[in-house]
């Protein structure tokens, strides 16, 4: 959905991740960008240059927080110290929503710093949804959970990944950060149809999308975020926007990071794939030619 309760009723358009190699360019050139996504943990510090840079960025741009270590699927209770720091950052950035991953990565206080796949069971979905509710209540902003790319599936799973995602977000009443590249990567690693996945998620809960590049190895695909977006992922993205509407979209490029302009131009390619999709979506919900607030290309922030 273009603007909904899961993304704070915003229409941020197309953004990119805020990354260190681009700081000087952004601060000096002040390029027009729809929004920046920050990795929350990089700014959950007590002081210094990270926060100084962030404050300067906040003077000019919309910023949305994306976390990598809340581990909503871990059996452990949410870490209060982590939540407290995250809330301090939420107050600083005034982020309309926060996102983190539908995964686990810590147990008994030991952290893997990886996004580990969940066993798709009802018990895991129930526990995860409880944690998401606790986190959202504490932070006071909507939470969107992101599907991760994975390289393993578990015998104990009782449903598909998209059924599990649906079970969790319905129970938690939260949003979805739909990572189209992750769907593609996992579909190749596990042999499912990525369009079945897209068609299976509750479209009305999608508050944001991610696109990214990946790397193909002989026996599996790795989610590396070090390449431009591949065409099959753009095609999936186009389908996702037809189903869900045109929503806040972010290109992730985290390794072998090229110039700011190259990253930004790659992100803006999304416009080529959502132009038709947006019209299809509007036609479906009867908005074409009627509603000036419809998510047409001209209504999005220039980017």
């Amino acid at each position, binding site marked *: 959905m273009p603007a909904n309760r899961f993304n704070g009723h915003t229409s941020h358009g197309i953004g990119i991740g805020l990354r260190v190699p681009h700081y000087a360019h952004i601060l000096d050139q002040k390029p027009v960008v729809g929004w920046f996504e920050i990795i929350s943990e990089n700014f959950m*510090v007590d002081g210094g240059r990270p926060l100084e840079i962030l404050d300067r960025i906040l003077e000019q741009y919309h910023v949305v927080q994306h976390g990598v270590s809340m581990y909503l699927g*871990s059996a452990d209770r949410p870490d209060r110290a982590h939540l407290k720091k995250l809330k301090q950052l939420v107050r600083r950035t005034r982020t309309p929503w926060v996102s983190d991953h539908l995964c686990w990565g810590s147990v008994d206080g030991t952290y893997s*710093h*990886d996004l580990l796949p969940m066993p798709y069971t009802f018990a895991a979905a129930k526990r995860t949804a409880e944690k998401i509710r606790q986190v959202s209540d504490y932070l006071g902003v909507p939470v969107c959970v992101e599907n991760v790319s994975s390289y*393993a599936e578990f*015998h*104990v799973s009782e449903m598909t990944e998209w059924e599990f995602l649906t079970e969790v977000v319905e129970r938690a009443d939260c949003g979805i950060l739909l990572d189209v590249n992750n769907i593609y990567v996992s579909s190749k690693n596990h042999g499912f149809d990525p369009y079945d996945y897209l068609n299976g998620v509750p479209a009305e809960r999608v508050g944001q999308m991610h696109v990214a590049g990946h790397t193909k190895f002989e026996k599996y695909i790795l989610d590396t975020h070090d390449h431009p977006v591949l065409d099959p992922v753009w095609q999936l993205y186009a389908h996702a926007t037809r189903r869900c509407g045109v929503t806040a979209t972010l290109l992730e490029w985290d390794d072998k990071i090229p110039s700011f302009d190259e990253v930004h131009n790659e992100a803006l390619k999304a416009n080529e794939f959502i132009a038709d999709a947006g019209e299809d979506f509007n036609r479906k919900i009867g908005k074409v030619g009627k509603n000036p607030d419809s998510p047409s290309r001209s209504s999005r922030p220039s980017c």
Partner: protein
Amino acid sequence: MKSTADLRAFQRVMMGALVRPLGSATEAGAGFIKPNSRLTALERLEIYHRMYWFRLIDSVTDDSPGLAFLLGEAKFDRLVRAYLGKYPSRSFTLRNLCSRLPQFIREEPRWTSPRTALAWDVARFEWAQTVAYDGEERPLLSPAEIAGVPPARLRLALQPCLSLLALDFPVDDFVMAVKKRNTLRDEASNAREAGGRAGRRAKRVAPPRRGRVYLAVYRLGGRLHYLRLELGGFRILEAIRAGRSLARAIAAGGRLRPAQVEEWFATWMKFGWFCRTPL
């Protein structure tokens, strides 16, 4: 899997499989994983196992350029694996991954022998840089706030992002030389890729000879700085950090000229090292 307890048990087994030493064999965890037509269950587990180790080793390496240079690639790699084996990450952020590395070097000197003392100093200095980079900086103490308080009752506080180090080796110059060398090497590498010939500028860096150094590592204007201190000044600052009154802290500095002490305090105030005590 019917409960949170089952989920926790599953996650404990999987975490155990991830953090086991690189190259060690195990079937634990693989029993949970489905194979596919291209990969066995164990091979799928190994993808995560290797990613765990490579990510954490990369992170320690990024934060420890001086230690990595001092020990050399193979020895440093063995140290990091042993360190992470004993002290896996207990923080949500990789920023804290090296916090116990100096302690580990003292506890298990075999990984750094025969340069354990130097390695310990380098590790402490590099951790102090992390603390200075993004550690807490409290509101500055103004002279007006302490005017009129007798030195015997006055207790000052040092900025949390300021570290005081008593070192047996002048590792400050060494680590900075290594960083400069690495920067030049990276530039040379880029230049070579672009057809340039800049590689000759990256010089060799010799490990420092033993020599007592007292150091303050701090942040000023958003940038990292370090300052060598005289022993008297170092002792005063340590006493302040320990919560002594100003009078007792100055006494801890030994027999010093009042003008010297006054000059030090003026410099430390200028650098913003004194802050308000937390409420």
